[in-house]
């Protein structure tokens, strides 16, 4: 089984020490990407729940260790170059965030006894049972634990919050803090940390809900962003409290002190406010030299603030909201994580995007707003690619076997703005069977009834195997929305059906290239228009050989000869309007799916023109194997049954002639999911007389997918023989050497005499001055030589 499509941006990534690797939390694994090629190098597998934090140990470039924390309540220590798990610490609480201050501070001269490493974790715990029978509330705690000699989580609770908050640490490791509603809590890490050492805490206040904070690398400056887009910068925080040379103070006293500085009496010298972002600030980060501040938010614009003057520089139009900005140890790289599951690697002084680690783009955020308009993923069965619509009006092609984005085409040429309301949406993506043609439908929603537009576009593959627009059709069915687009399996022919009551057959004129002449105007043309009793045409499909076109007219299925546009037969009817039609491979059966109050999956026999069998199931997706008479459906389970099965959906594999399913798998997040049979490699063995070529791909509502052999035995593991491109790692230089080149090795033993070519140590001292004068070394050198040669040499044994 291959699985992929994980979320790359669930938590901030981390750079390795040499900045050649980027450690990204992908679900329950940590994927290690190369920053030079943006391809996957290895992955750390072991956690059983999503990983929430990864901290790289910055000791030396020889060892590559990191700590990870996960929801499953464990902290693991890894050697990520091997990769292998070194140590597991089980805290027993789901961990949402972790910082390790002692790793950040500069390694002091190694004592005989290495100090204990302490981590501060933000965990979520079950609260005490409230008196009335309500469920136990979960709340967040900030706690400390000793990573070197772990016995148990220390009793010390730094802070109790309503929800687990993410911890932010200063680059020096001196402070860490959280934001809690309209307050900022900052702790100073005790110098000699121990299980019981109490951290001193200050609180900074604001009138709006804070979203993010960042510490300055050197000075006592902390920056925080709020939901309205303001950035607040406190300078000289904690001057009064942290510098006080008091001994241990217990929690009760500190509470009293906190009350002394009320409304504007924060423990900070100044507070500056900058306002550029129009909505909440999502990330803040100081540059490593402390001169600049990076901020980003929903607008998808990375803003670079000059800290002293407040001047701004922008990297605009990144295309989706920014989530995290991570600086690398190498000053010429940094990475930004975007909400559309992309991690861009920036070339730093110039802020250019040089590389992208692209995950599968997430489904539209406001899917429920435009229900019925959002498209399913389209599968290219031959090359194992899936085409998914993206929020910025494009289509992303994602390779299922390689688990990475291949390329993206812009369907609607508009600038993307991250706003809540969706007004333009790519509502259909459809690929032909051989993957050489694509049809897309984009819908512009009208404003108060004016200005709506439906556009149908046909795309052909160009020379570099990318899709380019071939034909653009405005309002193909007047103002009616399109219900389905289907391609002929062998010829350049397509059908589009509309709710307006008609369907159109489109044909593509082949290019006639005459020598020395222009390519004649080629493109898709309307070949025929059909309608049936003015009923809404809700679905369309071509049969496997392309001789029959089935179009669903509301509750009946009409069969047409696509070449002559002649109605051949009408079959049906179903209880509710049909939403999709699929021919079951090469067999003479047709499947129809209808939703609504009486959902139904029906199998129709084409030879008898009658229903063969049917199920009352809420079907989310149907796919049929191209060359076999099997088909698979993804059914949503009713809420009652959810406990008997693990997930909320079930995949059933049927043989068309038999209503008893051949196999079934239960899946999660089935709503909005998709299914497809993929053609595998031809060089595969046959097990039990059933060919293993075809694999079944399931993509769930969050666009995570898995690929498995539907005919294999239960638990048959697919050997992942994906041919990854060889990771061609450039041994690039960074930092100082990238600019000025490698320094010559500074060698103390290089004797001053080595530069003298005519070193005369072996020679008798009489010979030193012999030879022509222009060949002699300078007198100062010769003099020392001469005097040296006069000295009596010690015996070698002394040395």
């Amino acid at each position, binding site marked *: 089984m291959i699985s992929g499509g994980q979320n790359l941006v669930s938590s901030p990534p981390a750079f390795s020490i040499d900045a050649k690797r980027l450690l990204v939390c992908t679900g329950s694994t940590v994927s290690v990407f190369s920053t030079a*090629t943006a391809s996957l190098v290895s992955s750390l597998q072991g956690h059983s729940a999503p990983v929430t934090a990864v901290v790289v140990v910055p000791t030396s470039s020889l060892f590559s260790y990191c700590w990870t924390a996960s929801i499953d309540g464990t902290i693991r220590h890894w050697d990520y170059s091997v990769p292998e798990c070194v140590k597991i610490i089980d805290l027993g609480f789901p961990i949402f965030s972790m910082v390790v201050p002692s790793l950040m501070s500069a390694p002091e001269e190694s004592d005989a006894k290495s100090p204990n490493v302490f981590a501060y974790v933000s965990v979520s715990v079950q609260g005490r049972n409230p008196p009335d029978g309500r469920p136990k509330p979960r709340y967040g705690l900030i706690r400390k634990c000793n990573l070197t000699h772990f016995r148990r989580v220390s009793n010390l609770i730094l802070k109790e919050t309503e929800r687990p908050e993410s911890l932010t640490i200063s680059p020096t490791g001196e402070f860490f803090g959280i934001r809690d509603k309209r307050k900022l809590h900052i702790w100073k890490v005790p110098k000699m940390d121990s299980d019981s050492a109490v951290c001193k805490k200050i609180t900074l206040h604001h009138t709006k809900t804070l979203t993010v904070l960042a510490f300055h690398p050197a000075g006592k400056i902390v920056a925080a962003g709020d939901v309205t887009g303001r950035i607040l910068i406190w300078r000289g925080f904690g001057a009064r409290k942290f510098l006080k040379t008091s001994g241990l103070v217990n929690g009760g006293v500190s509470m009293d002190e906190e009350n002394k500085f009320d409304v504007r009496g924060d423990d900070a010298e100044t507070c500056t406010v900058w306002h550029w972002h129009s909505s909440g600030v999502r990330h803040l980060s100081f540059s490593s030299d402390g001169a600049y501040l990076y901020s980003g938010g929903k607008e998808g614009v990375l803003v670079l603030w000059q800290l002293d003057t407040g001047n701004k520089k922008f990297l605009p*139009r990144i295309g989706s909201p920014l989530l995290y900005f991570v600086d690398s140890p190498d000053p010429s790289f940094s990475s930004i994580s975007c909400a559309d599951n992309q991690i861009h690697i920036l070339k730093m002084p110039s802020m250019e995007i040089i590389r*992208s680690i692209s995950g599968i783009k997430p489904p539209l955020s406001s899917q429920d707003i435009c229900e019925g308009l959002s498209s399913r993923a389209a599968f290219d069965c031959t090359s194992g690619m899936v085409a998914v619509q993206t929020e910025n009006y494009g289509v992303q092609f994602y390779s299922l076997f390689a688990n990475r984005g291949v390329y993206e085409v812009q369907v609607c040429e508009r600038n993307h703005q991250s706003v809540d309301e969706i*007004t333009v949406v790519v509502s259909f993506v459809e690929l032909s069977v051989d993957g050489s043609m694509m049809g897309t439908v984009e819908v512009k929603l009208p*404003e108060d009834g004016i*200005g709506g537009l439906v556009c149908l576009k046909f795309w052909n593959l160009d020379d570099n195997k990318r899709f380019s627009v071939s034909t653009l059709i*405005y309002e193909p069915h007047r103002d009616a929305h399109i219900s389905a687009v289907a391609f002929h399996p062998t010829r350049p022919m397509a059908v589009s059906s509309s709710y307006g009551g008609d369907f159109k057959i489109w044909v593509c004129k082949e290019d006639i290239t005459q020598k020395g002449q222009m390519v*004649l105007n080629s493109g898709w043309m309307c070949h025929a228009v059909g309608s049936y009793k003015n009923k809404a045409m809700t679905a369309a499909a071509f049969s496997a050989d392309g001789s029959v076109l089935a179009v669903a007219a509301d509750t009946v299925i009409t069969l047409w000869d696509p070449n002559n546009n002649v109605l051949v037969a009408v079959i049906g009817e179903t209880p509710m309007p049909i939403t999709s039609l699929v021919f079951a491979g090469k067999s003479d059966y047709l499947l129809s799916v209808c939703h609504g109050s009486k959902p139904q999956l029906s199998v129709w026999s084409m030879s008898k023109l009658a229903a063969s069998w049917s199920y009352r199931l809420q079907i989310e997706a149907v796919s049929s194997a191209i060359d076999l008479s099997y088909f698979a459906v993804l059914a949503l389970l009713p809420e009652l049954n959810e406990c008997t099965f693990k997930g909320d959906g079930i995949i059933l594999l049927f043989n068309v002639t038999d209503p008893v399913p051949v196999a079934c798998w239960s899946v999660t997040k089935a709503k909005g999911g998709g299914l497809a049979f993929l053609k595998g490699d031809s060089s595969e063995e046959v097990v039990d007389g059933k060919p293993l070529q075809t694999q079944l791909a399931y993509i769930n509502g969050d666009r995570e997918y898995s690929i498995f052999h539907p005919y294999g035995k239960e638990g048959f593991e697919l050997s992942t023989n994906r041919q990854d491109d060889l990771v061609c790692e450039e041994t690039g230089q960074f930092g100082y050497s990238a600019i000025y080149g490698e320094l010559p090795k500074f060698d103390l033993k290089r004797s001053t005499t080595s530069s003298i070519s005519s070193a005369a140590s072996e020679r008798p001292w009489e010979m030193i001055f012999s030879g022509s004068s222009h060949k002699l070394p300078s007198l100062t050198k010769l003099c020392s030589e001469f005097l040296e040669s006069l000295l009596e040499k010690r015996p070698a044994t002394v040395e």
Partner: protein
Amino acid sequence: MEESRVEKNFPVRTRVKSKSRSQKQSPESKYWSSFKTVEIPNLISVPSLSFSPTPPHSFAAAHSASLTLFSSLTLSPTATLSSFSDSVSSASFRNDSLLLAASDLSGLVQLFDVKSRTPLRRLRSHSRPVRFVHFPRLDKLHLISAGDDALINLWDVALESPIARFLGHKDYVRCGDSSPVNSDVFLTGSYDHVVKLWDVRVRDSSKSQLQVHHGSPVEDVLFLPSGGMLATAGGNSVKLWDLIGGGKLLFSMESHNKTVTSICVGRIGKDFVEESNQFRIMSVGLDGYLKVFDYGALKVTHSMRFPAPLLSVGYSPDCSTRVIGTSNGLIYASKRKIKAEENQKESESSLFWRVAPLERTEKKVLRPSHFRYFHRGQGEKPSKGDYLVMKPKKVKLAAHDKLLNKFRHGEALVCVLGNKNPGHVLAVMEELVARKKLLKCVSNLDEENLELLLGFLHKYCTLPRYSSLLMGLTKKVIEMRADDIRASQALRNHVRNLKRSVEEEIRIQQSLQEIQGIISPLLKIAGK
């Protein structure tokens, strides 16, 4: 690997117009339409046009009782011969262009010296109007004439007397041609539907060598340049005959709607197609069409319409001039536009013997006294091995795009309305709809700009391309800004105009629906 990609800045785009699916102009019709036509007016019906066979290929046009010589370079008349007692019917140049023969309806054939324009000979033998006179192409001493008396005379020009007389046609003889390969053979065509081939060496005057039956009165007849084929025109058809094969019909071109009055052979440019396929038959008819017929491929390659019945056509041997005579006294003379480089070539070759202008030898050294000194070297082209540092191309954005990028929606709308490009206005409006800001913009327009918007709506809201958006918008605008419109006289005028154009559109739609009502039953019947 997905390459790094920053989302680009997309300016608003106007809707793509559909391209016509009809085939583009073929190169040959492009050639023929490269002739630039001028009208030569103030004549009376032009029944005959003939080109002189030697450069500069002046042409003679017969009209009424005079014959005018035109220069084919300037298309202006150079001389007029008017010593005719009746309408001139036909004219012909001798192959050295020194003599010109002309016939008139009185039955007289006259010969003129082209240079001095003095009549040299008067040939009188025909008793009825002469319709056709022709110098054989390879013969300087004889002349053929024929006319309404159905007689064909072969004249000795010097003696001023007919040396042979051919009888055989049963009706008016209207046309004829001599062979381009044999000086003794010629053709005549007559209203008795027959074209006869005569040989002057056979003195049996009533026996033609060959005859073909065209099927309708023959208006014109022509030897094709090979000499082995002939073309006849009559009725609505032009027919091709194979002489060597004994007068076999090869093809009948019937694309004219009325009588074909004249045909001629023309050559298209040398560099254009291979040698064997250069000749075209040009035919003109009373339907006003000029058709160019490729008799190698047996198809009409170009067709052109003139607003008058056409009577005669002529094409200069150097392919540069085409003249067409009409019945209402116009001559459509066309000259091909010769490209500048061709001219250049010609002028260079003519310069060959002249002394070239003295080349400036010493190079002028730029001094800092001159402005150009400070720009020296900036126009230098990179040599092959140079590494080019490219400047990133600056994206040019229209003013409304810049405003849209800054979210200044109202200003963008006003800015684009001022530009008078309806496509751009629509594109900006669509973008505003996508941002859900259009109605807000409309409600915030001040009176002056509202006037601008109403003017735009009046002009374009009924255009089918734009109406789907603009009709809805118009309604909204009037609803939303009713109070402002009521308050201002100028706005009320605009609304009145708007109302008028909407009423006009409704009328058009109604009449179209009426037409549809008539047509749809017919289509139903046709479909069955």
